[in-house]
């Protein structure tokens, strides 16, 4: 709880700093604040978790871990933000504030224990992002991203709310515990409204995690938004959304599996294929990552399809792995784009000659995204597959495997470009903060890949 307060206050403080033109203090202050809130979370690590504020939020282990991960990823992103935002405009403080607000929303989504909190958390997260996506005011891409994200987000919110309402109408409460109770108490006589409510919740949440057929915003928004914001969207927001998704479904709807698992199954398969196949034919690295993020969402959905004790750990691991790799991938794009000015694969040509270390980290992240052993990405896939196979969805895994094989193609295109395609290019500037972040992320990827116990033991 302290974390949420800290974060909100931190955001406001940042706004004030901006007001007093204390630019240089922004980064350290917000980093300190973030780490502080992370610490606050870790403080009640071993506390027996009970719902706070008349059952509004519940900081159990699950919530703690996910929140901490989100916060730490945000730390990495903010580290990258040095001399990134002020290329856009002077209002760096606002950007920071919005990011932190959004993070607050994310934390709420991971820890909600009441539909109201879920709803508000999601909205805080999204509203901040609607804005952040559009901060390049003169850039059409940015504008378009903002507008598309906003319109579709608002639209999906409508369905989410409708769903919540129906659930409320059926169960007569917004409190997860009571809803769960309602489900357990009358296994047969559950009102149809409840089922429709579940379906509409699926719509709303699937939209947030960018699962087909509600994924259409993802590529365009990721593509149009400023890269750093894209990183935030594709890592923190996605992770939080999945946390919320999982929390709701594993806690409340778990007894009704037979009803919604088929739906999720279909959604998962479509998501995998749409994401991968479309990513195959992209020329822009950024857009490829956008599509691949869809397919990764597909993989993470495995955790929900095979809902069970292991899901949370699996999704956590996968989300972490994916986030770390994505930070490197998009971050490197920032650097490369500065010299080449384009998002295409070609701008990576011959990178290995000029910046071997950078190329190596990118390679690691690509291998992790592709799911090669000894990287975090592999372990993530492995555990998710294990979970699904435990439920005997062999076909699903076979399809997933086909997709994994496809994915190799577009991830290796980057490696091919960096190592095998010769190109006359100047050295890409590799600022120290980027080095720190990348090396940290790469090491974590390998560490988790070699010894995943680090993460899985947390939940």
């Amino acid at each position, binding site marked *: 709880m302290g974390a949420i307060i800290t974060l909100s206050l931190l955001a406001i403080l940042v706004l004030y700093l901006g007001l007093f033109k204390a630019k240089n203090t922004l980064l350290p202050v917000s980093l300190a604040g973030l780490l502080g809130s992370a610490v606050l979370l870790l403080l009640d690590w071993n506390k027996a978790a009970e719902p706070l504020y008349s059952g509004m939020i519940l900081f159990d282990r699950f919530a703690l871990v996910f929140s901490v991960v989100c916060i730490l990823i945000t730390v990495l992103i903010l580290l990258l933000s040095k001399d990134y935002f002020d290329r856009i405009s002077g209002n760096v403080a606002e950007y920071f504030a919005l990011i932190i607000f959004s993070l607050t929303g994310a934390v709420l989504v991971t820890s909600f224990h009441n*539909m109201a909190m879920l709803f508000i958390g999601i909205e805080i997260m999204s509203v901040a992002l609607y*804005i952040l996506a559009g901060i390049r005011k003169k850039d059409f891409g940015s504008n378009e991203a903002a507008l598309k994200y906003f319109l579709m987000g608002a639209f999906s*919110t409508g369905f989410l709310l409708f769903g919540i309402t129906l659930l409320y109408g059926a169960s007569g409460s917004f409190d997860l515990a009571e809803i769960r109770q309602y489900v357990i108490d009358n296994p047969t006589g559950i009102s149809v409204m409840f089922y429709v409510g579940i379906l509409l919740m699926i719509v709303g949440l699937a939209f947030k995690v960018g699962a087909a057929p509600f994924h259409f915003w993802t590529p365009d928004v990721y*593509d149009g938004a400023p890269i750093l914001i894209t990183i935030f969207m594709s890592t923190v927001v996605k992770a939080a959304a999945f946390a919320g998704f999982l929390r709701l479904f594993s806690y409340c709807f778990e007894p009704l599996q037979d009803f919604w698992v088929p739906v999720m199954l279909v959604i998962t398969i479509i998501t995998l294929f749409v994401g991968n196949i479309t990513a195959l034919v992209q020329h822009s690295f950024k857009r490829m990552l956008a599509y691949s993020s869809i397919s990764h969402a597909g993989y993470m959905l495995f955790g929900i399809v095979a809902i069970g004790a292991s899901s949370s750990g699996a999704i956590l691991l996968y989300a972490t792995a994916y986030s770390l790799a994505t930070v490197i991938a998009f971050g490197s794009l920032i650097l490369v784009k500065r010299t080449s000015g384009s998002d295409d694969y070609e701008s990576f040509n011959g990178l290995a000659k000029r910046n071997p270390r950078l190329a190596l980290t990118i390679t690691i992240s690509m291998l992790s995204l592709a799911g090669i052993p000894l990287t975090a990405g592999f372990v993530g896939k492995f555990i998710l597959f294990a979970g699904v196979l435990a439920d005997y969805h062999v076909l699903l895994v076979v399809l997933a495997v086909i997709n994994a094989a496809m994915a190799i193609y577009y991830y290796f295109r980057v490696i091919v470009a960096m190592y095998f395609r010769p190109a006359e290019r100047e050295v890409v500037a590799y600022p120290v903060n980027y080095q720190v972040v990348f090396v940290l992320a790469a090491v974590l990827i390998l560490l988790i890949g070699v010894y995943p116990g680090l993460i899985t033991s947390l939940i």
Partner: protein
Amino acid sequence: MDGIINSMQGVPLNHYILFSTIIFSIGVIGVLIRRNAIIIMMSIELMLNSVNLLLAAFSAYSGDPAGQVFVFFIMALAAAEVAVGLAIIVMVYRNTRSLDINTLNRLKW
């Protein structure tokens, strides 16, 4: 007041749901058939309102105020969304001199 209340008695719950669903669908239709971003936003507002009404109906039905309280949050959201949305629209308008959502299709494929 009582008169009104009495006149309320006996409207089947389903009809409330039906009604708000219709409004909601109208909102959806609006979103689908208009190209003016503002109108689309308004249609979305329509959807939200139908939800509000439904919540109110439910809370009245089950005699639990939580539903009505929830409506406040939705309203807050609506306000926030409108503010942000209109800001975005204005920003876009500055660049494109149009509110037509179809003019914004540079990002594709």
